[in-house]
């Protein structure tokens, strides 16, 4: 049977066909839909973890128990999961273990564009890289076989264009006859104390050599001979771009990007006159090929930053005069009004950022929908490094500031992010009594990545009722004395509490309690009566525009000097934040 699947759907299908029993992940674009799709297969126990380290450790546990298991994350998730990954490389696996990592070259929705292939080399684990959805499925299956055959975790690297691209996939039946999970004691292999680890390390080095040799004749690494003038080593989606941009070139398509099949590379290099590596981001393959003593051209002509495309590859080869320049394309360059993303109408984050701006706060930010509080007209975020950093950055920044500056420091963090890595940071802040204010924007969901449940949302991945983390009690348990809970739609109250807590020379936490306005089909969110601008009462003062709500539009008069505000009834949720800003009572409920 054939279906059009996204790379993420195909990886999920591959996990199902491979007989995976346990899957764990933390959401992150572009990897999120992998676990969401895995959860549609009832044979797999799948669940969200609070962060990527925990997700990988859950998978490791399942593997030690003999089950095939999978963990999925975005590229930066591996930074969080790196600690278990590096030692897992030493212990090896019980049941096969596959770690899926989805990179985001071009940073379509990420804070950096790190190249995960480096992790494979650094942790000494094999990595496969599929080039379309069919390969996503196939490689996932193959990765489990490889994992068990070589007693190693296997990484699969996807990227935005693979994970969110769709192509045709033929489906197969799941494998049968896998051993049943059971407890088997093996401390010398699984207890990584120095004495044991010293025995394991040489085995890991030998494994890498063996894998490289295996790769020389593994069919997912293949030479495609065409013209002998140009030979190109490529992997993943880049292979597709190369085939399109340089159809005449011979290619060595690598399905396994680490360790490299050295014999095969030598063989390919010998058949072509000029050898190139075309790879997105780092010169990962190029440097290793150069180290083998083979002359090769790569980043000298191919960009280091951003994603590649057939066009970018062609331009690179034309500029280097390797291929003749093509006729100029229909490029229309000009400045158009940009259309950046915005917080939704009714978003409970909006009013908080409006008030933070008014309070002249220095906001150490974090990652989530609320990062959009950085955008005009709210302009109320001053830092954003990685998940969880808001609180610890605030704790650090206040240490060297005079008291009047200390007061301005406010950390802002979402519920999912707080549970991900913010709890440790708050523990530090309470422990060391850093006098900053923390706002936890609890919208009852992981909104940014498409509304996934989390340990405080009250539901599991499967939508089953679950115990809820009590965030206020957790903060108190960490040692925070001043914990305030408020409704962020109530600007007066929010402003008052913010002032009180900012002026307090002790750590304090403010928790907002409005759910995300996109959780509609749920008792957690109820839409209120819509609002309108009564045109005869609107003075055109623009106060309501300062919150940047997409439902409010400025309608200039004919000369464009004055105008009035207008609320789009299709977008308004009736949150009343704009109404509270109108001094002329011109914003009223629609009758």
């Amino acid at each position: 049977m054939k279906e059009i699947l996204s790379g993420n759907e195909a990886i999920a299908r591959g996990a199902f066909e491979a007989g995976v029993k346990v899957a764990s992940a933390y959401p992150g674009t572009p990897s999120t839909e992998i676990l969401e799709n895995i959860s549609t297969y009832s044979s797999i126990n799948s669940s969200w973890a609070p962060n990527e380290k925990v997700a990988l450790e859950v998978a490791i546990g399942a593997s030690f128990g003999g089950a095939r298991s999978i963990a999925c994350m975005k590229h930066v998730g591996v930074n969080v999961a790196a600690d278990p990954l590096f030692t897992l490389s030493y212990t090896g696996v019980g049941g096969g273990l596959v770690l899926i990592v989805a990179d985001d070259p071009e940073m379509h929705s990420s804070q950096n564009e790190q190249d995960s292939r480096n992790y494979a080399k650094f942790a000494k684990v094999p990595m496969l890289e599929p080039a379309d959805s069919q390969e996503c499925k196939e490689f996932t299956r193959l990765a489990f076989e490889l994992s068990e055959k070589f007693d190693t975790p296997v990484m699969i690297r996807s990227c935005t264009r693979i994970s969110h691209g769709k192509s045709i996939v033929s489906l197969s039946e799941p494998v049968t006859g896998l051993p049943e999970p059971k407890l088997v004691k093996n401390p010398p292999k699984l207890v990584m104390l120095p004495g044991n680890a010293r025995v394991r390390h040489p085995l890991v080095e030998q494994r890498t050599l063996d894998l490289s040799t295996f790769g020389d004749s593994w069919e997912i690494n293949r030479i495609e001979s065409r013209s002998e003038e140009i030979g190109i080593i490529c992997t993943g989606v880049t292979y597709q771009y190369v085939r399109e941009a340089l159809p005449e070139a011979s290619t060595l398509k690598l399905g396994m990007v680490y360790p490299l099949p050295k014999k095969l590379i030598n063989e390919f290099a010998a058949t072509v006159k000029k050898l190139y590596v075309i790879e997105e981001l780092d010169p990962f393959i190029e440097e290793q090929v150069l180290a083998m003593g083979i002359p090769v051209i790569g980043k000298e002509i191919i960009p280091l930053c951003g994603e590649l495309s057939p066009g970018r590859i062609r331009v690179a080869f034309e500029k280097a005069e390797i291929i003749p320049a093509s006729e100029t394309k229909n490029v229309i360059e000009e400045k158009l009004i940009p259309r950046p993303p915005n917080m939704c109408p009714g978003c409970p984050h909006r009013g908080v950022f409006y008030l933070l701006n008014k309070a002249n706060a220095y906001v150490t930010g974090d990652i989530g929908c609320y990062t959009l509080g950085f955008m005009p007209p709210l302009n109320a975020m001053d830092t954003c490094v990685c998940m969880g950093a808001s609180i610890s950055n605030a704790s650090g920044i206040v240490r060297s500031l005079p008291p009047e500056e200390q007061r301005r420091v406010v950390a802002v963090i979402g519920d999912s992010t707080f549970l991900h890595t913010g709890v440790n940071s708050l523990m530090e802040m309470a422990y060391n009594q850093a006098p900053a204010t923390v706002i936890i924007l609890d919208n009852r969901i992981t909104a940014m990545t498409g509304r996934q449940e989390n340990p405080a949302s009250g539901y599991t991945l499967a939508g089953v009722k679950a115990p809820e983390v009590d965030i206020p009690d957790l903060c108190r348990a960490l040692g925070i004395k001043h914990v305030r809970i408020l409704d962020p739609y109530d600007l007066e109250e929010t402003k008052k509490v913010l002032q009180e807590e900012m002026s307090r020379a002790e750590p304090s936490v403010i928790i907002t309690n409005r759910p995300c306005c996109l959780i509609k089909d749920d008792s957690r969110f109820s839409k209120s009566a819509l609002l309108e601008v009564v045109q005869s009462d609107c003075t055109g003062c623009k106060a309501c525009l300062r919150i940047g709500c997409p439902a409010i539009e400025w309608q200039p008069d004919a000369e464009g000097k004055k105008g009035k505000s207008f609320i789009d009834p299709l977008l308004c949720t009736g949150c009343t934040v704009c109404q509270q800003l109108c001094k002329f009572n011109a914003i009223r409920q629609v009758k």
Partner: protein
Amino acid sequence: MADSITNVLLVGVGGQGILLASEILAEAFMIAGFDVKKSEIHGMSQRGGSVVSHVRFGEKVYSPVVPEGEGDILFGFELLETRRYLNLLRPGAKVIVNDFMIQPPSVLLGNDRYPENLAEEISQRFTDFKLIDGLKIATEVGNQRVANTVLLGAVSKHLKLDDRVWQKALQKMVPAKALQVNLKAFESGRSL
């Protein structure tokens, strides 16, 4: 090689239903026996950002993204976004646009003005141009929410697939209770 491939671009604003429309297109091409690839960026699309979806079909498709300057058909859900992606098109490409405007943030705030006469400007650059009032036709068919399907119907005329293929694709992708009105909307777009 690229000549045997048809490149369709769907552009608009997050939340307009572009992803579903592109899924239906891709499904139809697969049913018709073509190789198909599709690509878009979802991350920020829900929050009202600019969205472009690439759908490519032919005998064998490699890249999931349409190379700059090789788009054959642009299917615009919104005028400013249509304008934004014109440089992905080849000269002489077809442009089919919904007569619809969504104000970007800076216009809502009164800091910028939504550009005027966009339709005219686009039609001067791409003479194979069609402006469709999707919302009006959808309202006539009986449901404002099927405006995208009207547009899809209009685009389908240029894609040389059988009626039957489109019906099958819609059947698969649209929930059963909305199927009838969607088929009707598709027909009215196709007969424009």
